Every structure is written in C-alpha cells, then in structure tokens.
C-alpha cells in the first residue's frame, strides 16, 4: 500500500515537538518547587567552584607553610589554615572535587546495578526474581561500616576504589524500587503489544520497561549522590577513606578532630560544605520526585 504513497511526502519538516508537552509539565512542576530550584543553584555553584579549583584557589592544596599554622580566617586565608599551614579554602575546593566525584560515580554505579537487578527481577519474575531479590536481601544485611573497615585494612583507598566500593554497597534500594515499578509496567498493554510484534525481551526491557521507570530511577540516583558523599565523609573521618595529602571533605574533618573546640573553623567549613551539598542534592531529589509524578500519573 505504501509504495505509491511513499513518494508523496518524503521531505517533511521535523518539528521539534517531541516530548515537549511532557517536558513543559516537568519544568513547570520543578520550578514550582522553590527549594529544589534554590538547591539546583547551590549545587551548581559548589560543583563549578570545585571543578574550577585550580583557577579559583589562591594556593596549592598541599602547600605547607609552617609559619602560619592554624590561623583564623583572614584576608589572606578566607577560611583560615590547618595544622600544617595549608590554606583551608583551597583544600575545601579541592576536597569537594574528590567528594563530589566519589558521590556521583558511586551513585551512577549503584543506580546502574540497582536498575539492572530490579528490571531483570521484576521482568522475568519467578526464579530470576527469587534469586536476585535474595541476593539483594543478603547485600542489605551486610554491615557496611565493618566491611569497609576490613577492606581498608587490606587495601589503600583511592577516590576510584572508594566510588566502586560505595557503589557496590548502595544499589539495593534502587533495585527494590525499580523491581516494583517494573512489576506494574510489564503488565501494560504496550508491553504485550510489543511482544505480539516480535520484540525480544532485551528490547522490551530497554525500550519499553526501563524508560517508563526512569522517574524513580532518576530520583533514586540523586538521593544516592547525597548518601555517597555522607558515607565517604564517615569513612574518611575514620581514617579509612582517601589518604592525605589528597583532601576530601571527610578527611579534612578527621584532621580537625583534635582542635575542634579551639579552632572551630577547621571543622565548620568542610562540615558546611558537606551539609549544603547533601541537603541541596536531597531537595533536588524531592523536587524531581514531585515534578516527575505530579499528583499521580495522567494518562494523556
């Protein structure tokens, strides 16, 4: 039937309308979420500042100046100096690079594993579901901190290895959320329709199931960034994280332990950096959640 008609309108104008209606709703909802918008700004400033650390920082992050140890904030050192005379502002910027990088990478890894496990378990069901969900239960039951302490005693932590380890320990929630989402998506008529047209399982999962579960996946990933930054800080605080002289927000806190009462700025600034970053990321997650599912999903 088409041969005759195909010639009719070959070169049409591609209007860039695809998805704009849904997109507009998304942005409108997100903009209404004031905290999320402010948080987006906070995260943007923090990320840009840390990324541009070599340009912004007044000193080298490992430049030791024994003549100015533990100085209070001043014009020369806006956040003061630490116990080796290193500029704290510089170290907060450089530390942020590592902390944020670990946060993002481990969130990506964890979300990837979680989405894959959840999608396979939910889609195939039965044995696959049973096995994968029991593995998830086991992973949940692993006490994170003791395991990391044991790991750290055998290996030297780097930013990369920290990201991998945290990622490997934080996929379970995503897996459960995605699984439950997939359980309902796979019953949708369009999945059966795709199957009736010969689509393979791989394609059905990739093109039909996962894209429709993207909302909770994105929200989960965002929240995971915050959690990973916290976990990195805890580990570094215990001395199990990235080793000095490379600064992270966590190991800066550890360095400041001894002088917390007398030289509070050493604790306050990296602490505030963690607080703002995690808080902002979590608010963005909340905003995304509301924007991606405004009052229950509309069919249109």
């Amino acid at each position, binding site marked *: 039937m088409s041969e005759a008609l195909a010639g009719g309108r070959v070169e049409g104008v591609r209007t860039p309308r695809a998805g704009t209606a849904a997109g507009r709703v998304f942005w409108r909802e997100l903009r209404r979420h004031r905290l999320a918008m402010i948080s987006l700004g906070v995260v943007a400033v923090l990320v840009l500042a840390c990324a541009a650390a070599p340009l912004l920082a007044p000193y080298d992050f490992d430049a030791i100046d024994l003549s100015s140890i533990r100085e209070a904030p001043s014009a020369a050192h806006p956040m003061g100096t630490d116990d080796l005379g290193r500029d704290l502002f510089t170290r907060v910027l450089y530390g942020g690079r590592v902390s944020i990088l670990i946060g993002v990478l481990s969130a990506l890894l964890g979300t990837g594993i979680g989405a894959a496990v959840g999608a396979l378990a939910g889609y195939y069901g039965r044995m696959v579901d049973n096995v994968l969900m029991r593995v998830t239960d086991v992973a949940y039951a692993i006490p994170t901190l003791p395991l990391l302490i044991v790991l750290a005693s055998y290996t030297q932590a780097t930013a990369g290895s920290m990201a991998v380890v945290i990622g490997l320990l934080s996929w379970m929630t995503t897996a459960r959320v995605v699984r439950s989402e997939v359980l309902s998506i796979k019953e949708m008529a369009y999945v059966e329709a795709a199957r009736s047209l010969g689509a393979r399982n791989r394609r059905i999962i990739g*093109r039909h199931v996962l894209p429709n579960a993207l909302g909770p996946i994105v929200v989960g990933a965002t929240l995971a960034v915050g959690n990973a930054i916290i976990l990195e800080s805890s580990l570094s605080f215990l001395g199990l994280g990235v080793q000095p002289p490379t600064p992270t927000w966590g190991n800066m806190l550890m360095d400041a332990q001894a002088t917390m009462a007398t030289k509070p700025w050493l604790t306050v600034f990296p602490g505030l950096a963690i607080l703002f970053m995690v808080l902002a990321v979590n608010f963005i997650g909340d905003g995304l959640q509301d924007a991606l599912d405004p009052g229950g999903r509309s*069919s249109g």
Partner: protein
Amino acid sequence: MSQAAATPVLDVRDLVTRFETRAGPVHAVNGISYTLHAGESLALVGESGSGKTVSALSLLGLVPPPGRVEGGRVLLNGRDLLGLSRRAWQDVRGKEIAMVFQDPMTSLNPVLTVGRQLTGPMRRHLGMSRRAAEDEAAALLARVGIPDARERLSDHPHRFSGGQRQRIVIAMALACRPAVLVADEPTTALDVTIQAQIVALVRELQEELGTAILWITHDLALVAGLVDRVAVMYGGTLVEEAPVDDLFARPSHPYTRGLLASLPEGSAGTGPLPTIEGRPPDLLDPPSACPFAPRCGWVEQRCRAELPRLRPVAPGHASACWRWEELGGAPGEVGASVEDPGEEPR
C-alpha cells in the same frame, strides 16, 4: 469466501489451553478447530470468559503464565507454531502473524515517539534501515488516515486521539504485512462513530494486502457486515461455525439463537431485551456433556449425558447441538417457544 482447494494460511486443530491455578486446572480452551484462508476473515464470537481471547493469544504463543497450550496444532502456512522455540516465535510474531489489542489508549508506549514504535517491527523483521523504515512508517501512517503523517512520526502517543491511536496500532501490526492479523475487540474502547471508521479501515486494508483476519468480539451486530464466517465460542469450545449470512438466517445452536435474540435490533417492541438465563460453565470443572445444557431451553436427556461434536448441518455450516434439526429456520428465543418465527434479525 474463498474456501478453494488452496491450503489455509491458518489451520488450528484441537487447540487446548489450560491455566494451572491453585484451585486446579482451568480449561480455558477445550479443543477448538478452525481454518482461515488467505484474505478471508473469521469472527470468533463469545461472551466474556468463553476463551476467545485466550485462544487468540495461544496462536501467538503469548498465553500468560500459569497458562499453557497443552495440545493441538497451530499451522501457519503449513508450519506448526506450537513446536517453535522462544526465539523462533519472536521471529514469527509481527512478521507472519500480528495482533491488535482492545485498548488503544494503553497499547502504545507513552515515552516513545510513534515513529520509533512504528519502525521497530520493520527494522526488526525486515532489516530495514532507519531511513527506509521511516519512509515506510510515514506512508503507513498516511494510509491509515493520519494527516501530516511524516511530521507526526516524531509525536508521542498522547498527542493522538483514541481513534488515531488505534489506527496507529493497526499500522504497526500490518507494517510487516503479516499473513494473519488477530484483532481482539479493537473497537470496544472507541466511540460508535469511530468504531465504524476503524472497521471500514480494517476491511480496506484487508482487501489491499490480502491479510487473513481473525476478528475476536462479543458483538454479533458488528460482525454482520464485516466477516466472511463466524465461529461461536461457548465455555472454551466452538458450538457453531457458519458463513455469516447463513448464521444469521439459520442459527443452528440454541446459544447462537440466544445471542441473536438478545441483539437490540433483533427484538421487537420496547420491552426489556431478551437475555440468556443462567451462567457460563465453570471452566475449573468443565461439563462432560453439552456445556450449554444447563441454560438451554431445548435441553433433553441426551444433552446432559453426551458431549455433542461439531457436525455439518449445511455446506460450510456446522453445529454442536444434538437437536439442531428441530430448532427451525429463523432465530428466536433460547427456549422452545418462538413468538415471532418470521422475524429476521437484520
């Protein structure tokens, strides 16, 4: 009706599909047989729970667990589909046999553009390039009556009306020119005016492409001007099969007569519509005799003891009723008393 010597494109024999439930096996389809020739259309008519949808899903190997096709053969162009591997099934679906589902509002993936969904099967089965598939998709969309087809390929489903979506779904199903199209009540979810348009569209496409169509419906009125033959399903079995005009003129099973009598057009006056009393058989425990016996006004001793098989009553017309000869020519009530025997349903 092209029941020539040619072999049928679809030959279903003694199809049995069961669901293993906790309460025991549910006998959804109990050995039904029918054939479909190229370009022919057959309606599978029955009430909810008669097994018509399950029998259709069985043809595509899409019976959801815990359901299983337990026996019979489904010959598509001479090849038995029931023996195929999962992979081989996937190559057949959408290419040689395709299905259109009831609800067009949910049959399309909301997050993919219509173009993506239309080109999918063609690229998958025919190995077409993206560009070629898009050209073909635009032509298909234009053919099923979507204006500005080329531009609208990049739209998501929510920008189309219900009728348009069903047109798109039909285009998707026919994209690879399958030999058989299974249409599972594709008009039930649509307005009456749109229904008529969709029916007309399917008929046109059928003639153009020579597709054989298995039309599944509970609506006998819809079937009248649409198909060549009708098979009436009851309790997982076929109780009557006939050319469509013959079925309306000489229904030879009490159940068919009941269905025809309960059509709004078929009943005289303004009183309540006639109904068939009673309930369909329990498929957990299918009767070993005639499944319609408990509801039948013509029932006799034999009906409760022996299962009637589908037997020819006229050329191309078969009935599974022991007493078909006594039913008389015109449709009437299910019971023995026919008030107005001369009335024609249509």
